[in-house]
């Protein structure tokens, strides 16, 4: 894999995983109003 491919894959995956972690952490860790 080229460097460009690795970078694009890494950035996209990071963003997707981070968004999921944020959402699920917020759901499970935040008390409902």
């Amino acid at each position, binding site marked *: 894999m080229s460097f460009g491919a690795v970078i694009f894959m890494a950035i996209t995956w990071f963003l997707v995983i981070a968004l999921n972690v944020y959402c699920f952490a917020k759901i499970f860790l935040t008390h*409902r109003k």
Partner: protein
Amino acid sequence: MAQAGQREEWGSRIGLILAAAGNAIGIGNLLRFPGQAGANGGGAFMIPYVISLIVFGLPMMWVAWTIGRIGGRYGHGSTPGMFDKMSNSRFAKYFGVLGLALPLIFVLYYTYIEAWCLGYSWFSLTGDYISEAGRNVDLRVYYDEFLGNTTTHSYFPGLSSALTFLLIALVLNVFVLYRGVARGIEMLAKIAIPLLALFCLVLIVRIFSIGDSALVKGTAMDGLAFLWTPDFSTLTSPSVWLAAAGQIFFTLSIGFGSLECYSSYVKQNEDIALTGLTTASSNEFVEIIFGSMIAIPAAALFFGAGEVQSIASSGTYSIGMVTMPEILRSFPGAQLFGTIWFLLLFFAAFTSSVGVAQPVMAFLQDELKIKRGAAAMVVGVFWLLGTIPVIYFYRYGVLDEMDFWSGTIGLVVMALIEVVLFAWVFKIGRSWEVLHQGAQIQVPRFFKPIINYVTPIALIAILVGWMGDAVSQGKLIPQPRLAWDVMNRSEYTGNFIKNSENDVTHLQRNIISNFEGSVSTAVTGANRDLTAYARIQFPGDGTVRVVSYEGDPKLAPGVTVASLQSYLNAKGFHYEVFDNGAWVSEPGEAMLAIEGLNRAPYIWLIRIIIVALIVAFSIMVHVIWKERRLSGEGGTA
């Protein structure tokens, strides 16, 4: 139970998220996304893809959940009632009819695709398509015969197998709908989504753990390289932006009315803003991470990096139903991994179809006050009757036609209506308040101008782009379809098509278009299907020779022995003996059937059915609201 005055509610927050994610996650995540990404610039495709997600993927998600909440407040689970509550205009509810007719058309053909996956998981388990000594299964023909898309019957005597699996899929769908929102859809999602993730992981481990073998022509990493190597030159092409926007649209199940319906069952003081975002992010996880690690890496491993491009652009169903089983059956554990692959596709489709059918269930329950069991029966009977033309007229392209109007154009129209209602009719300020009622997150304010201006403009651009494509490709006027088959397939041992159409030269293209054009003209002139037969020989040097031809006199002027021979040569058809070491015999003769199918009556039938459904629902809505007006109910939000 949905009794008068008391609507159903979701059992748990996680159940709702899994159900909404299951609704969004479908076959497109695992098959369509990698094909689109690979064919449209690899890593660079992610730039328009992410922008599309922000410009209208996430906004439409929040729009849908908000509209659903407004409807749910007044006991409406389908879009006619929701739209009516959002607008002072008495016409608004009729726009909502699209949110009933389009999903209903969608489920009629989507259940058939579900049935394919279910059928193939059974065929995998029993090893039916796995070649063995004395029986070499051509998966392309196997797939076509299963669907009745060919005149040959080497593997299936008729459509009985497809019908059986369709009935099973249909009964499962209706059963889940009958059980209701919490005990049906939510329960299904709680089982299916974890299973789906598990199946993905098993297949990823399998594909990336296949080591060196005589069968391997590349590595799984070649597939990832194909998908992610950025090609920035594609960013200036409008078609790439259109493809990215289209993918976001398909993948998030926007415009079906099902997310709105799901939202209507959420308690008024509970969050929908974070739930909508989580639905989209879970869907993206399955699409970007799981979707890029299965089909394309497997194709690169088995066929080599050079073949991946043509496989990626061969179409969603071709990758799923022909290429993947071809790969999986070649390695140890074929039955197990084939079963897992098709069950994965089945569950992805199943959780989507029950979601898309739910708005119609909600309409029957909420507006016509039909009890859930009876509503499920009504939907089930219509579903069964409506799916039959899809099966029997499949070869005339009815599934593609339904997909074009309900699964493509209709969704954009529906989304456009919704965003205008949200931002301009109900007014963005009030809609924003409803979205944030009980919300666990504050949606960034810059989404307000996006929803107000950018999303509607982007939707109009997509609509114009897609309709422009349809007009330029002549899709709106039904063209005859040319089909050909080797009749006595069991009597010869070979592959018939070897070269890809992408390889043909300009001259060859002319020959092909002349031949196909003359068949199409004959079919159009006769206004019926026309058939011809040609006797072909395999001289042993890898070529095909047409020795005689006879057929319908109407076809004869355009199709002669010489023109057919030129056509076959130009298409790159030649004979190649199967290399399975089994019963290789001397090449003999075969009979070739050439069919010109007159698609127009079937395509127009589908269009009439779609219009009839819209009219029928409009009449129902008219009568229901008239009754309500007379009894003094109604009013807007």
